């Protein structure tokens, strides 16, 4: 548990560094406000509408597949650490697990979910 204290210190220190940096910049920087400067950049032309728009639903499917695989890897890690103790049985068990996942991947592949729009 104690080793996590250091990590916490790291986190706090990281935030402090950013805060100090931005604070210093806030003190030092000049300010010449001009409404023209606040335009969002759209290559020098007046933007068409708002940028916060709906995206295509297919972006989210990537996130879903990612969740599946990331949780999978969390499962594999403890198995990998103890691989030598688990032996042949553990190996094949994990193989079955992986095959199921791969079937899912192939399904997504064939359904053309993995294509970017």
């Amino acid at each position, binding site marked *: 548990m104690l*080793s*996590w*204290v*250091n*990590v916490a*210190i*790291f986190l706090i*220190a*990281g*935030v402090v*560094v*950013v*805060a100090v*940096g*931005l604070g210093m*910049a*806030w003190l*030092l*920087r*000049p*300010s010449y406000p001009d409404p023209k*400067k*606040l*335009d*969002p*950049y*759209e*290559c020098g032309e007046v*933007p068409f509408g*708002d*940028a*916060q*728009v709906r*995206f295509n639903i297919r*972006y989210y499917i*990537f*996130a879903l*597949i*990612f969740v599946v*695989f*990331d949780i999978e*890897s*969390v499962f594999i*890690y403890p198995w*990998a*650490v103890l*691989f*030598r103790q688990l*032996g042949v049985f553990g*190996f094949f068990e*994990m*193989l079955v697990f*992986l095959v199921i996942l*791969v079937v899912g*991947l192939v399904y*997504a*592949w064939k359904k053309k979910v*993995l*294509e*970017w729009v």
Partner: protein
Amino acid sequence: MAALADTWQALLDWYFALPTAILVPIAGLLKVLAVFGWIVINVLILIWLERKFSGRLQSRLGPMRVGRPHGWAQTLADTIKLLVKEDIIPRGVDRWLYVIAPAVVFTPALLVWAVVPFTKNWIVSDLNVALIYVAAAGSLAVLGIFMSGWGSNNKWSLLGAMRAAAQIISYEVPSVLSLMGVVMIAGSLSLQGIVAAQHRVWFIFLQPLGFIIYLISTMAELNRTPFDLTEAESELVAGFNTEYSGLRWAFFFLGEYANLLAASAIAATVFLGGWSGPFLPGIVWFVLKTYFFVILIMWIKWTMPRIRIDQMMEVGWKFLIPAALVNIAITGLVLLVV
């Protein structure tokens, strides 16, 4: 002289006599400060190095003027410039997201360093789940990138953010899976444990496939060419950081280099045996191996054209993930047979 030594001894005695509850945070703080110093100095060097290195690759000289010889002070000058730059928060931004995004990108790059072993004894905290921690900390940055892209109220930023999210989550999986073979051989998730497991032979030789997958996916997670799609200046102007300037932008930039350094250090530790090596002290080996990766990644960056986003997703999902799974299976089989 003797008096000084005595005082020092007394100070140490007093220090070690402190109760653990105080001792550990102080020791931690000192270590953290040291590591911070290391990161800051190295990032400054890295930025300069990249400019000089890419300059030489391109038959240029790179920075030469600020700080002679060879413009060593260029990065410092740039930092000062960015520090005193006017801050512009464009109209229509999601203010909170816009403001805190740089911090969210920058901090995880530092967090990784909590578990990197510099030498046998020099490590901030030798977590027993270090590799999972590294992966987790490394993928935090995507949150910041997405926040900046969405919060900027700019279409190029938004496209960059969408790309970033998809790219980093797609390459997170192979990068994690590619390390699995190493974990299986080492039987440990602690980086010190992994270094110790390499005292005879480096994992780059035992896990060549895993290494290549890791290198590719790391470069993708670092957003470096050929995978710099989130910025992709010729396509998206500057991607997620289009609307940023001054020190806010600088934190994205610093974060990128801190990440590069961290990823190189992890790669050096996991695949090249970290600080271990003959003759020279551990820290020297560590620095050499880290910079080997830094240079390698820069070299690739300045040679390759950029891949397209859909091709990138294809490579990740249809090639790297299956290959990483195959790597696990092969490693398992070999370990069972041997």
